[in-house]
């Protein structure tokens, strides 16, 4: 039996990055914010003090969603069968206070100016027929220039480390000369990089490219932010992505925005509270949310504003599940646009080199201790004579290696030379190495291997989308979210071209031997690739082409706001976190300063 709880000004789904940013901004201005978090409370001290255990945190995903309770179903295209992802998995959605922002890698970017007007830019430069068939590419309703002050403040709040490459239009060698102009340098100098990263940067320079150190939301020195949070410099401990940071070097909501929000006395985080739907009144506006509490009991939480600040998938699923008479297809879905423009992220280890008698110690560091080039990012390079659009960042070589998770990925996929079959391997199982030769190879070379990786753009298509699964349900008794997704021709051509460039760079690095994966395999749901699913509730210039305006405000239901990467019309060739934080800062200020003066109305854009 549901009990009705005391109303709050704002209720958020989850207590992750964007929830904490909204909470900090709004509580500062006197509003009461409640975050309903499905997982537990956790703090750096004591929860992360003794967590250097890769089996538990990396292989068994201790910080992630328990799939036995909720998972996602997948089919490569609308004609193929759908099955649930029964074990991890292509992506690692988090849970618990701080969300995925506890176990994130810390890689922190600003988008390029052309990321925001992607469609217009490409048509102007190459003509409309250059865009791939069946695409849904769309301009953002916001520009880089609008977001610059928010990027700036966000980087200082996170204690970001990096080397500026474009300071107010002045290009700085050693930084990313292709980046959009910034008004201030990073607050902290860049992190240290690994030995192969240094070899990589030298090779890139020799080939005429422009390497720079990875910017990160990880402090490289001891740091105090404007809220008074005190953070230690990075220890390069090698237990970063998939772990909480035990010295608060990695920026997490629990060492940035949650403490100042809690200090106001107007912020509450309620753990073990799983939101199951947005409640709507007869006028079609939200009245709050329903959630299942720690005892499994349904509760109704009233609020003036509902914010979907959870992971991309969770936000989209909640929109679709929240049906009412006025909005029979779910919140924001009167025109059937929820679930459209689902995109993902290329993330591949493209080339692996073995450097005889070197000891690279890649077990140290973290996944940001690397060098990057943008020379093949997005439309930085001329595609006139190429048969694809887009690109990505090429980087090498991050640290944080541990044998549990990487011993099966090396150049010599050795099979014992035994009959009956000498067939070429068709899938990941058939590629598994084993036996004495493999063991000898690991002994001789594990510490002398280095790879070059690609993180690339993902474009939206008509046959790539999210919807509710007709068959499978979660522990909450409601349909799971279904993904229809596979790589398209443009992806394969883009990958093949860049793999060729990566092959040249690896060769230039001078390894004893190396192997480049020259072709992109079809997508599969079981191998980890990236936790950057994006889209499904995109922002746009008007209700005809999007679910929300540029503040994430749902056109059809103006007291519902969405944050995070669900808002992305397409995904750029870098980690999405920097952009979604900048957007959240902008939206938070607008809500704080303008929304409450004119509640339940669309903010002017």
């Amino acid at each position, binding site marked *: 039996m549901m009990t009705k709880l005391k109303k709050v000004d704002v209720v958020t789904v989850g207590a992750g990055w964007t929830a904490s940013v909204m909470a900090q901004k709004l509580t500062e201005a006197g509003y009461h914010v409640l975050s309903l978090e499905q997982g537990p409370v956790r703090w750096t001290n004591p929860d992360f003090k*003794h967590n*250097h*255990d*890769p*089996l538990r945190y990396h292989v*068994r995903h201790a910080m992630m969603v328990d*799939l*036995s309770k909720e*998972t996602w179903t997948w089919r490569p295209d609308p004609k*193929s*069968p759908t*099955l649930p992802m*029964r*074990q*991890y*998995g292509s992506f690692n959605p988090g849970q618990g206070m701080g969300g995925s922002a506890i176990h994130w890698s810390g890689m922190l970017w600003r988008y390029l100016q052309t990321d925001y007007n992607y469609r217009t830019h490409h048509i102007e430069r190459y003509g409309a027929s250059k865009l791939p068939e069946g695409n849904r590419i769309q301009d953002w309703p916001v520009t880089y220039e609008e977001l610059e002050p928010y990027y700036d403040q966000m980087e200082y709040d996170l204690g970001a480390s990096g080397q500026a490459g474009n300071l107010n239009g002045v290009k700085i060698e050693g930084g990313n000369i292709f980046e959009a102009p910034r008004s201030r340098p990073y607050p902290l100098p860049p992190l240290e*990089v690994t*030995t192969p990263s240094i070899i990589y940067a030298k090779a890139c320079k020799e080939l005429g490219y422009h390497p720079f150190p990875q910017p990160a939301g990880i402090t490289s*020195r*001891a740091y105090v932010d404007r809220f008074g949070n*005190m*953070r*230690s*410099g990075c*220890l*390069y*401990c090698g237990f970063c992505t998939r772990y909480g940071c035990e*010295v*608060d070097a990695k920026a997490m909501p629990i060492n940035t925005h949650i403490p100042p929000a809690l200090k106001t006395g107007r912020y509450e985080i309620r753990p073990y509270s799983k939101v199951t739907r947005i409640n709507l009144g007869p006028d079609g506006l939200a009245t709050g949310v329903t959630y299942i509490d720690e005892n499994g009991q349904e509760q109704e939480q009233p609020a003036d504003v509902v914010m979907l600040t959870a992971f991309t998938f969770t936000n989209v699923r909640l929109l679709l599940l929240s049906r009412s008479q006025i909005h029979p297809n779910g919140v924001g879905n009167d025109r059937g646009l929820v679930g459209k423009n689902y995109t993902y992220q290329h993330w591949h280890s493209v080339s692996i080199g073995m450097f005889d008698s070197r*000891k690279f*110690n890649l*077990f*140290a560091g973290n996944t940001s*201790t690397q060098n990057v080039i943008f020379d093949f990012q997005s439309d930085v390079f001329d595609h006139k004579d190429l048969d694809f659009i887009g690109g990505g960042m090429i980087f090498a070589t991050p640290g944080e*290696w*541990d*044998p*549990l998770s990487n*011993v099966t990925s090396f150049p010599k996929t050795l*099979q*014992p030379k*035994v009959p009956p*079959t000498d*067939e070429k391997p*068709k*899938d990941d*199982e058939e590629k*598994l190495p*084993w*036996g*004495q030769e493999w*063991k000898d190879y690991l*002994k001789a070379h*594990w*510490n002398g291997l280095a790879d070059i990786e690609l993180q690339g753009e993902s474009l939206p298509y008509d046959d790539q989308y999210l919807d509710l699964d007709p*068959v499978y*349900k979660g522990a909450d008794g409601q349909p799971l979210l279904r993904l229809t997704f596979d790589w398209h021709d443009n992806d394969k051509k883009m990958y093949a071209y860049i793999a060729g460039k990566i092959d040249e760079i690896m060769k230039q690095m001078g390894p004893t031997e190396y192997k480049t994966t020259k072709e992109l395999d079809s997508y*599969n*749901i*079981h191998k980890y690739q990236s936790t950057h699913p994006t889209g499904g509730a995109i922002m746009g210039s008007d209700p005809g082409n999007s679910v929300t305006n540029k503040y994430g405000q749902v056109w059809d239901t103006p007291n519902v706001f969405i944050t995070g990467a669900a808002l992305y019309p397409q995904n750029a060739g870098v980690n999405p976190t920097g952009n979604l934080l900048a957007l959240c800062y902008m939206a938070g200020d607008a809500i704080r300063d303008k929304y409450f003066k004119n509640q339940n109305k669309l903010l002017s854009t």
Partner: protein
Amino acid sequence: MLNKNDPNAGEAQRPSEHLSEDELLPQKNKITRRQFLKVSGAAATLIGAGFVLQACEPASLNVPYAPPAQLEYDAIPDAPMEPLPAGYDFFTSQEAKIVEAITSRIFPGTPDDPGALEAGVPFYIDKILSWYKGKVQYTYTEGPFAKTYEGDQPPGPDTEHIVYVKKAEISRYGFQDSIDLKEIYHNGLKQVEDYAKQKFGASFAYLTTEQQDTILKEMQFGKTKFEKPSDKEFFNILHEHTVEGMFADPSYGGNRDMVGWKLVGYPGAQRAYTPADLHDEGPGRPPQDIMMLHSFHPGQKANPNVIVPPSGSEELPQPNK
């Protein structure tokens, strides 16, 4: 594996709290022998018979770890390994023999060049299966379940319980079985054993290594008729568990004496590295496991080479050198 000649057989059992610091510390030129002992009725009988029973319960966290006064990173020499424990909790004796044989082919070894057997991989797998609830991955277990078919047309329409998927496509969807890990091992090992007898006329554990490799290769490439689990699925799980048993923290029962980490040069659960450590291509640190990872607080020394910066300080203190 039996070792009737082991000098430790019959030695008095001591709870781990009474181990001296000396016995806990990794010492120069000596591989630590830790004797965490689980005394039970069965154990007492086995010990009486000349076996050595070792469980892998972790040392008490109250025993302090003090780093040696001077860090010397000498090369760690090879040394003969201790014999394997005999006490499986989940596998039958026959199943244990097959698991030992299979994992020894995936990751071969000898006492001088330790592999899966010496590291205790079968023991690690046994522990996952007996501590089942806490030790395996999150798995969504609701139906309907996949059923594969060959050819272009499925045998029928999908039902409430079955989703038909082309055999060539099924591996894209990852793990899809409807049975749990314990059944997978029981059924899988039985099928391996039956197949060995059918193909080569003897139990799997008694085949030549070439014959064993032949069978494993056939499983890996999906050439047998195994079902529930399929051959590929079972091979994949065995491989996965062998890797885990070689390289997970020793507190899970495998990677005994950190032999897996020593093989590849991974220093295990270290607290911190300096920028100089990232680029140092010398012998490197000896590995340590998570039980040796002492607590620390900002301002304290993590080890003589790394000082954790005090929170909020204006500048990084210089390490003592």
